[in-house]
Structures are given as C-alpha cells and as structure tokens.
C-alpha cells in the first residue's frame, strides 16, 4: 500500500506525525518536512537562500532522528532559517566510540523575517516518547511526538 511521506496524529497534550520512507534517509527527510508543515502553513516569504550541511552523530538511529529534527528547530527559531530543497542525506556508522551512527545532510535553507512569518505552532522540542524506527513492509516508519 502506498504511504504518504507523513500523517499528522492526535495526542492529548501535544502533536505528532507518523513518518514513512522507502529508506532510512528518506524517513529523515520526510520527518523534517512533516515537522515544518506543522509549524508553517503554506509557502513563507524568504530572502537569501544558501546551501547548508548538517552533521549529527548519536548512539542510535532514534536519537539521530531527534538530533536532526532538533537541529532544524534550532535553526528555525534562533537563526530564522527554514529548509527548502533537500539534497543528499547519508546515514552511516560512526567511527566514534560512543556515537554509533552519524548523518550528513545537505539542503538549501532560506532566511525568513521573524516579524513577517507567523508560525502556526511553536514546537518546543522533539520528544523521545515511544520513538522507534521500524521496517514495515517496504517502508521504514516512525512516530514522533512534539512538545508544544
């Protein structure tokens, strides 16, 4: 069965998405798209657009997913940057003793004016609640709850 990249789900106090990807990397990109869709309604007026590279490393792929999304949240709220086009995304084992998996992603990010862009929702954090990345049929899937 064809799955969309993400679905919004109900949670009593907060909000969440169930994400699907044909690969782990695709899951990560779709999770980012879903999170941004929760925050911003429709196209945002942007100024300068540049290519960015994001590196993350974590003890497992679930932590890596939250780190990746948290990095995008930080760039949005504190640097006023929103993701545009996603380029490459590679997830590989890490050389580090304590971090077992790493991500390198390239994407375009655009500057937004915080006075003119009004996010629909303030996402405070990406929670780890029941977070588990699983293979279901031909999709990799995860459900992510965001604290709002």
């Amino acid at each position, binding site marked *: 069965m064809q799955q969309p990249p993400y679905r919004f789900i109900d949670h009593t106090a907060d909000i969440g998405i169930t994400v699907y990807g044909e690969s782990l990397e695709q899951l990560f990109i779709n999770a980012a798209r879903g999170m941004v869709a929760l925050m911003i309604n429709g196209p945002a007026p942007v100024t300068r657009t540049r290519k960015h590279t994001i590196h993350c490393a974590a003890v497992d792929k679930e932590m890596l997913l939250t780190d990746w999304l948290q990095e995008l949240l*930080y760039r949005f709220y504190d640097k006023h940057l929103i993701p545009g086009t996603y380029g490459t995304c590679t997830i590989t084992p890490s050389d580090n003793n304590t971090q077992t998996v790493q991500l390198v992603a390239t994407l375009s990010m655009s500057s937004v004016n915080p006075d003119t862009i009004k996010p629909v929702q303030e996402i405070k954090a990406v929670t780890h609640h029941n*977070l588990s990345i699983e293979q279901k049929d031909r999709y990799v899937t995860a459900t992510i709850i965001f604290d709002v």
Partner: protein
Amino acid sequence: MTGYTYVTKIDDFRFEIPRKGAMNVPGKIFASEKILPQIVHEQAAAQVQNVAMLPGIVGYSLAMPDIHWGYGFPIGGVGAFREDTGVISPGGIGYDISCGVRLYRTHVPMKQYENRIDEILQLLFAAVPSGVGSTGRLKLSKKDMVNVLTTGAQWAVSQGYGTAEDIPCIEDKGYMKEADPDTISQRARERGLNQLGTLGSGNHFLEIQEVTDIYDERIASIFGVFHGQMVIMVHTGSRGLGYQVCDDFIRVMVEASRRYQIKLPDRQLACAPIRSPEGKRYFGAMAAATNFARANRQIIGGWVQETMIRVLKISPKDLGMQLVYDVSHNIGKMEEHVIDGKKHTVCVHRKGATRAFPPGHRELPDVYQTTGQPVIVPGSMGTASYLMAGTEQALSETFGSTCHGAGRVLSRSAAKRKVRGQEIKQQLHQRNILVYTDSYSGLAEEAPMAYKDVDDVVDICHQAGISKKVCRMKPRGVIKG
C-alpha cells in the same frame, strides 16, 4: 472494583494500580468515577505503571486528577526517588522546566475598573511579549545570564522588577541554590538570551481575574484576598532555555541508562542515579533553568505592575499589587519526607503537579505558617481558577503535592476540528471575558472543551484532602500566549 482489570477502587477519590510485573511500587490515581474512564482510555494510567518501574521509587507512582497522557511521565504525575538508590529523570520534570504560575492580589475591587479591561489588556499585550517565538525587550549580557541562572527572581528584583517583599512568597525564595550555570550548554544560553521576559505560547497566559467565591475566610484573609477583588495571574516557564536543557540531558540520560543498565519502559524515562555525575549535572542544570523561569515571571510581573499604574493613573500604594505566591509545576526537588516512619531525602519529580506544603512547614514564609502554602490552580482559558492551600494529608500521602490545572481531554487538532478561534473569542466576550492573542489557531487549541472541568479536578483534591479550597476566581481579561 472499577470495571478496569488493573485499576482498583480504594475510595471515592483514590484508585490503585496494584504492583505487578516490573513495577517497584503500586500506582495511585486521585480521580473520581466520572473522570477515571478518560484517564484509562488514553493510557495515562499505563504511564503511571511505567514510572513505577524506575529504580529507587518509593511509596506510590502518583497521579493527580488532572492527569493526562504525556511522554514518559504522565502530565499530573508525581514520583519520589530515594537519594541513595534512586534515579533522576528529565522526562519526570518536562521540557518546560519550572513552568509555573504566580498570583498577585491588589487593593482594587474588579468593579472599579471593569469597564476599562479592554484598555488595560491592550497595554499589557504591548508590554509583555507573547505568542509563538516571542522575543523579549531585555538585552542580557553573558554576565547577566550567569546571574539569572544563579539567582533567578532575586536577580530580577535587583534590576528593579518587583520588590524584595516578593521574595519570601516565591518557592525557594526565588532561586534554587543548587543551580550550576556551567551545566547549561551554549545553545541553551543562546535560546534563552532573547526570551527572558516573554510569555511564550501554547497554554501560557496572563489573566486579570475577579475573586468570586471565598471558601475559607481565615486563610483568604491571610492570603490577602477578598470577594470581588481584582487579581492577576501569570503562567509561563523557562522558554527555549529550559527546552534545550531538557533535550541536552535526555541525550545524556539515554546513554547513562545503558551504562547503568537501567531498563526503560519508555525512552522518555531515560535517567541516571541521583548521585551519579550525570544525575548531579542534570540537577544543577534543572535548578539553573528553574531560576531562569522564576526570573522570567518576576520580570513579567514587574511590567504588569508598571502598566497597571500607568493606565489606571493610580499610585503603587493604591494599586497594592503584591505577590501572593509563585510556584512551579514542572520541577524536581530534593526534599525530606517520612516514609515508613523514617525520614528520607528523596528527589520528588512533579510533572504537571504543584507542591502543597502544610501549615508549619519550615519551607514556608512566616506569613503562611498558619495557613499552609498557597497553591495556584489555573483553569482552562475562560473557566475558573482556584487558590488553594497545602495540607498535612498531602505531605503524608503525595509527598506534599496536588494538581496543577484542569488537564486536557482533547488533542489540539481535535479541538481545532470542533471550534474556530474566532468563535471562542466571541463566546468568551458574551460571558464578559476579553481575549487578546496573536493566534486564533492557538485559541481554538486552548478552548475550554479541550480540558477537564477544573471544578471537578479541584473538588477531588479538596475531598481527598491533598489541598484545601480557599477561593475561586473568574477571568475577566486574558492574554493568551
């Protein structure tokens, strides 16, 4: 019996989840037959069981009647862990560290200015930054930030926000001494730098309220409240700084849980022994974030007072705006409690629960020694709020804890499907409640129907004896974050 296989009735307001399987202690939910089905249906009761599985927990894994599904701990959850054998968990305190509430009394009867609420709200809306991503009016230096993290509300007073008279009426006299600014990451400091003095969004608010019912005249008199009085309530927390601290330390704790071989029923319950380096670092960071939140509320209170004086053209003495109390409802505290007849130091995690110490407790200021600690319980937007007092029953049964609010029953998206923000604003206006907000979508999410009836929640706590009703307040003007 309750009709649920794993929840048994103790009495009309107490329900037990018997200890079984990996649970170290039983669970206890303060509720009624009316609200119990919701609690069980949305799996909040299952989260009470999960907390009971953590090492070193003592007594019961507790849930207040405003309990609802959270992540890790339920919202409305309380768990106490022995200092020597127990764990500390950022998930048991929450992302919005020291989210809390403060209540100010005034000398002014509401009816004296009720035709000027719109005017007051307009100016308050301009004076206090609110809404998604709100940034503050303050310019903090790095040295200022260290002082904020170390001395919290006391720093704010030293900068002219409020007065020294406020300090005894703030939990911990305005700051936690255990704060360690060195544990706060650079990113957390960056996030907090331009958010000090902001309300934020979600369920944060600033309300002008009217006291409509007095239940205990003696305590009300000592708290300084009277029937028909204008009071002001502020609800906010540690903003982006606190969220980042929690996130930073969940990462640490996930690794620590593996190292200390702690089995987690939910990753959000990641933890470390209280006495471990990780546990101590988190406690120091949490305390620093708490101080930030207390400074935040103190600053907002200062701006509210300035604005009220300016718009009403009234002297500070005639306004008489004084702090009743400031208390956190997402926090971890090292406290001494009697367990099985012996005193133990425990780390009490309150996640969506309020401390409620009884009369005579040494942590309370002199003025409240005969009343017990003021407990401020905000209702959902547009419904009542309550001022309560702490009790001996709370100290002996819930580690001195009680509810913190109404508790959600509907998800945000479900609320938005049922009602539009403009409709809510009109409905409230018809009930003489004015609302200012940046976000109609956010208003819909906070619709009263999305929450339990706060009267029910407060009644359960009162009837169970874990806090005592003092007075009820009705909102007249709301600034919703």
